[in-house]
């Protein structure tokens, strides 16, 4: 009899199993960590690619020109119609007097952006007193020069394959030696609209277009979504019809966004006759798309309000609607706002439905209202990504950076609101 030696239950088989349990836990942890690492690596890769491609777009090559605003050019001419290009060409010719021949001259004149003449025009229109004087000004260089200055042109290639010829490189070298060319902060990018010339293209029109579109979206989808959620969650009887509505709302959230674009095209543009390409119709389409998101988020946050609060209010004799508006809604509001911001962020990044309603058109003017033709940020990115010029590559990445900045800000705002208004019971 070895009763004393009876094995403790916590040895042998038990220990083996314990070890296995720990191993399983360890394996799972490793798996999880590697999944996170993988995701982070992709994120880092994405960000690095975008930033390294796009950071150079925030700087722009400018060239110093000594322009003589000759009186003869303006004689008998409207200030807006004077030949400013001639002024620029002459300034260049004076700088490089030994350039001979039409072709060489054309190349030389092409080194300055076509936007420079508008810059001169603005200067003269602001201050006609400039006529007859000589001014030293900085004007944007052509996008090929810009690319060269940013080091994107490979000079080891044969001359015929390059956008910058040897002669041009020489001129640039002269400018560099004289300190007449430099990279400066690219204000144009943040203040102007789209352009055929990369050095003149900016995102301000797209930002404004997106802003107007989102204003419409927010103004329509937030009140409608919240009202629908309150009705469904607090007032609607539970029956076939409401559960059908509920299922459909959930399904709507999963409908591909391009279909909303088609719907918008059919109803808002073709049937109602709202002008195409406008923030108004864009906002309407994005409202359709955002509504289900907001309704679902708002219902979830209404559900998360403890029933004891409703009982408390009903218990002192508040009516149903008082209970909802005095007690439930304020408590659910942070969650609703968070959901709304996330819905808005989604809408901000949405491209496909906007393509369907014509917001993909090439629009140079900065929209001034809800019914002006406009582009939106993601559509602008799409347009630039489609352009062959090397200068648009960096613009594309830079616009993506701007869009991401907006999205991150909106999401951070959502997190902040959630933290700030979180109520602990």
């Amino acid at each position: 009899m070895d009763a004393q030696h009876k094995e403790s239950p916590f040895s042998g088989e038990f220990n083996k199993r314990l070890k296995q349990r720990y191993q399983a836990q360890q394996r799972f942890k490793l798996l999880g960590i590697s999944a996170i690492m993988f995701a982070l690596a992709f994120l880092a890769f994405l960000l690095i690619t975008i930033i390294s491609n796009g950071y150079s777009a925030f700087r722009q090559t400018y060239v110093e020109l000594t322009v003589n605003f000759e009186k003869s050019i303006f004689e008998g001419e409207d200030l807006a119609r004077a030949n400013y290009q001639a002024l620029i060409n002459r300034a260049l010719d004076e700088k490089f007097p030994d350039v001979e021949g039409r072709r060489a001259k054309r190349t030389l004149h092409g080194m300055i952006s076509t936007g420079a003449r508008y810059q001169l025009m603005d200067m003269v229109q602001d201050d006609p007193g400039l006529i007859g004087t000589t001014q030293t000004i900085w004007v944007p260089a052509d996008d090929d020069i810009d690319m060269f200055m940013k080091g994107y042109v490979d000079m080891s290639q044969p001359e015929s394959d390059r956008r910058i010829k040897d002669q041009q490189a020489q001129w640039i070298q002269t400018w560099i030696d004289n300190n007449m060319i430099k990279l400066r902060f690219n204000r144009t990018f943040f203040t102007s609209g789209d352009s055929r010339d990369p050095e003149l293209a900016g995102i301000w029109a797209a930002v404004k277009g997106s802003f107007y579109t989102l204003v419409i979206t927010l103004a329509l989808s937030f009140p409608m979504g919240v009202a629908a959620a309150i009705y469904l969650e607090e007032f609607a009887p539970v029956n076939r019809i409401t559960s059908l509505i509920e299922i459909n709302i959930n399904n709507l959230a999963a409908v591909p966004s391009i279909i909303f674009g088609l719907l918008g095209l059919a109803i808002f543009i073709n049937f109602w006759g709202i002008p195409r390409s406008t923030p108004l119709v864009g906002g309407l389409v994005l409202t359709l798309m955002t509504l289900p998101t907001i309704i679902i988020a708002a219902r979830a946050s209404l559900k998360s309000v403890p029933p004891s609060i409703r009982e408390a209010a009903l218990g002192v004799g508040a009516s149903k609607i008082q209970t909802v508006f005095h007690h439930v809604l304020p408590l659910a509001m942070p969650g609703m706002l968070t959901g709304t911001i996330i819905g808005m962020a989604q809408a901000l990044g949405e491209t496909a439905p906007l393509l369907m309603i014509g917001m993909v058109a090439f629009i140079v003017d900065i929209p001034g209202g809800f019914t002006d033709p406009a582009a939106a940020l993601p559509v602008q990115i799409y347009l630039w990504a489609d352009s062959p010029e090397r200068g648009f590559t960096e613009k594309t990445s830079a616009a993506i950076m701007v869009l991401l900045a907006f999205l991150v800000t909106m999401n951070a705002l959502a997190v902040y609101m959630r933290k700030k208004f979180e109520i602990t019971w």
Partner: protein
Amino acid sequence: MKPTAGADQDNNTEDTGTEPARRKAGPDLYTEFQQIVGNPYVDNPRMVCRDVYVYYGETCAIKKVSIDVACNEVLAMIGPSGCGKSTFLRCLNRMNDTVSICRVEGEIRLDGMDIYDPSVDVVPLRAKVGMVFQKPNPFPKSIYENISYGPKIHGLTKDKHEMDEIVETSLIRAGLWEEVKDRLNEPGTGLSGGQQQRLCIARAIAVSPEVILMDEPCSALDPIATSKIEDLIAELRTQYSIVIVTHAMQQAARVSQRTAYFHLGNLVEVGDTDQIFTNPKHQLTEDYITGRFG
């Protein structure tokens, strides 16, 4: 479907087959009604309940309960968990309306008015029949707003001064004034559990109800807070009728004048508290009180 009353009171005391969970829905539900032992009626009733049935969907949770609530009395309701005390209590101010599957039959009158009459507005009814819940549930607003909310929505005050007065007297009556008078603007959720419960009582009495329903008001509280609330109940009895659900026999014995014992949806026995606790007539009551029952 008419309930067929009259199964003998003695024949199913040990019958475990009558557990509600195992019971099938159907007409046999009604046969389980037992005659109420003791006198459920009083001379000066404030609330009158006659043959009240409550159903959750197909399940019958309250079976033919008839009982009165007198003026200026504390009526305690005791019974094992799930026997329908809360369900019955919530009928008294139509709080059950919020449960969509819940259906109430029978007659419940407050001062002679049938509260389930379709013409009755629940808003003034709930102002007259206040309720204190098991878990303290102050609004996540300031202490002052917690109290002033009821009077405000019912328009009981003309100006801020009157409101201040109501808030102060309610808090004094709830025995909370001394503790919170310097921080009326702090959130009610920041108080301790016992203070929160007294705040909820103050909130209930701020609208000057006639009846106060309390569903296990002390179950989340320590003995000191409990005794404070018991004192408060004794004090409130001078003005209101109080119906209290409790699991603590001692508490029922201390605070109430009459006690009702519920079992599986039946009102088994009702009588003066002294009599119920010293000399219960029904076997089930005795088992429950002496602790022989689960």
